[in-house]
């Protein structure tokens, strides 16, 4: 088991009446990429800035490599940071930006080593041909690559990524996301990635922590977070869910004629609302079925259907795209569930 690289112990910070962090505790292992995910105002960025030393704390302790750095100034922490956008120095070329940290007293190296390092890094982020370009001559995606190379140049103890993809176009975003992951695995730097986009978090991280109101709701590997949420908030924030009423007894819930196991943290008795993923709902054309298709849309790889159940509940189901031609509006269908477990919240 690799050792713990970063420890945030019960850190808290208020801005006036707003509690940005309300006792956050988090551990990041050596070489691990942890994503902090949450709606805006949940405190994820404050946590990252506190780790960078750009934000004072009211309470708590920050340890990096076992050393307490709570009161260390930002420029002594040796962390590489990539910001949302527009953080490159406008009067420096890509190469000069990457070399910036290595010119400073803190990480000073010889001009020759500097040049070598920056060339390597620009190569790593796929921009070796753009070394002489200035920020205003590069696209947003290219600027972020340079920012990444600049942060990595000082061989940071921790790499901090503050929504680095949010200002980019959808296509570039996915491409760069995969590339960040590739580079991070190659370099092996412990990384904290902050985002409000769940797909991004699930796609890139070793573990994803979901935050709300300044505390961590759940932290787990992406698959577990998606399949086995421990709270209604996590279930609803990560991925799509259909709220369907059912009766709970013990650790099973009966919905749509099936008995399904409930996840820990669910309601244990009486009526409840099960949160069911669209892909867990199976819809089959059946003239005797009690549900009706309202509309279906062909989305390329899948078919998404909106279906009215007999009791009037409207749900969204996802099936193979080949079904699109069968599940037309008005078709009578039978709806069944196909999932090992669901989370059930109180009504």
């Amino acid at each position, binding site marked *: 088991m690799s050792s713990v690289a970063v420890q945030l112990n019960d850190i808290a910070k208020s801005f006036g009446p707003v509690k940005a962090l309300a006792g956050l505790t988090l551990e990041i292992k050596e070489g691990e990429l942890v994503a902090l995910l949450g709606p805006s105002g949940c405190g994820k960025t404050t946590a990252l800035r506190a780790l*960078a*030393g*750009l934000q004072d704390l009211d309470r708590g302790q920050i340890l990096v490599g076992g050393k307490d750095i709570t009161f260390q*100034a*930002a*420029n*002594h*922490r*040796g*962390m*590489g*940071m990539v*910001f949302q956008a*527009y*953080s*490159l*120095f*406008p*009067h420096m070329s890509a190469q000069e930006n990457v070399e*910036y*940290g290595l*010119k*400073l*007293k*803190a*990480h000073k190296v010889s001009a020759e080593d500097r040049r070598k390092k920056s060339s390597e890094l620009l190569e790593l982020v796929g921009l070796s041909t753009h070394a002489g370009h*200035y*920020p*205003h001559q*590069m696209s947003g995606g290219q*600027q972020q690559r340079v*920012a990444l190379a*600049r*942060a990595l*140049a*000082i061989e940071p103890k921790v790499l*901090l990524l503050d929504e680095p993809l949010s200002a980019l176009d959808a296509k570039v975003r996915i491409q760069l996301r995969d590339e960040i992951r590739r580079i991070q695995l190659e370099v092996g730097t412990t990384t904290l990635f902050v985002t409000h986009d769940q797909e991004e978090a699930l796609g890139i991280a070793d573990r994803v922590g979901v935050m709300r109101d300044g505390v961590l709701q759940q932290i787990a590997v992406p698959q577990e977070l998606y399949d086995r949420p421990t709270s209604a908030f996590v279930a609803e924030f990560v991925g799509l869910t259909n709220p369907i009423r059912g009766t709970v007894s013990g650790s099973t819930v009966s919905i749509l004629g099936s008995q399904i196991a409930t996840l820990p943290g669910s309601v244990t008795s009486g009526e409840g609302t099960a949160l069911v993923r669209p892909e867990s709902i199976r819809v089959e054309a059946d003239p005797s079925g009690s549900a009706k298709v309202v509309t279906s849309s062909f989305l390329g790889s899948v078919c998404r259907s909106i279906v009215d159940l007999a009791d009037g509940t409207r749900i969204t189901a996802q099936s193979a795209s080949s079904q699109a031609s069968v599940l037309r509006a008005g078709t009578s269908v039978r709806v069944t569930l196909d999932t090992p477990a669901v989370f059930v919240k109180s009504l």
Partner: protein
Amino acid sequence: MSQLTQEAITGSAARGSGYRAWRRVTPYFGVLPFLTLATLFLLWPTISVMTGAFQDSKGHFTFTSVHDVWTSSTHLAIFKNTLLLSGETALIGAILGALLSYAVATGKPDGILRRIWVSATGVLAQFGGVMLAFGFVATFGFNGFITTFVKSFAPHSFFANPSWLYGITGLAFVYCFFQIPLMFIVFLPAIDNLRPNWREASDSLGGSTWEYWRRVGIPVLTPSFLGSSLLLFANAFSAYATAASLISQGSIITPLEISGSLSSETGLANAATAKALSFGMVAVVVVVMALYTLLRRKVSKWEKS
């Protein structure tokens, strides 16, 4: 094809090219009134000064007046005075104005301090000319506020004798009054454009405050600072009213010289001198403004990134 459409086609084809050309030209008539006014009161006067500098009294081309001015030690000394005055007040105004805008910009972005400064400098930058001259006469003139005050306990000190106010030192001192606010107005946006991200990026990469300013802050602000200083230079260089109202005798700067040769009764030779001097002034301002435009372009490129 029916008779009707046939006719319609031949009809519009017949109206063809002439009509189309007419339709293309008509919008240009819209600018005629403005163009007439601008020609009469701006373009033609400008051209007549520029060409007049190279004409003799009969309208023939000659270098005489420009040559005379260029070789006259009096004219040259005054021209140099004017350049120096503009340079000094631009420099002092730029430094103090830049420091002021930094001091104000580091305050609260919506704070009352900032709002007061933004409004006040807008007025003060415009408060040149006659009124400003009287303001300084009331302060440092013979019965001025400071003069009377200083006289009472240090009758032989610098401020006790107000004759300095009516010379080049006085002008420089007075000009700063509108230069500093002007610098504030043009430089504040540049300071506002210093992104907090840059400072944070520098900090996280291990930079000290000094290293940030040396490698990022100052280099980023330099083009704006130089551009604004050029603007201040042109501003002081073109100024006339303050000096005219403060200094009633003697021409110590070129604008005063020009007005002197315009209003004196000695006739046409002076008109040629006025034009030659004017030509020199315009040449300086045009160069300065061209440099300013170049620097602006650089800055606006950076702003886009």
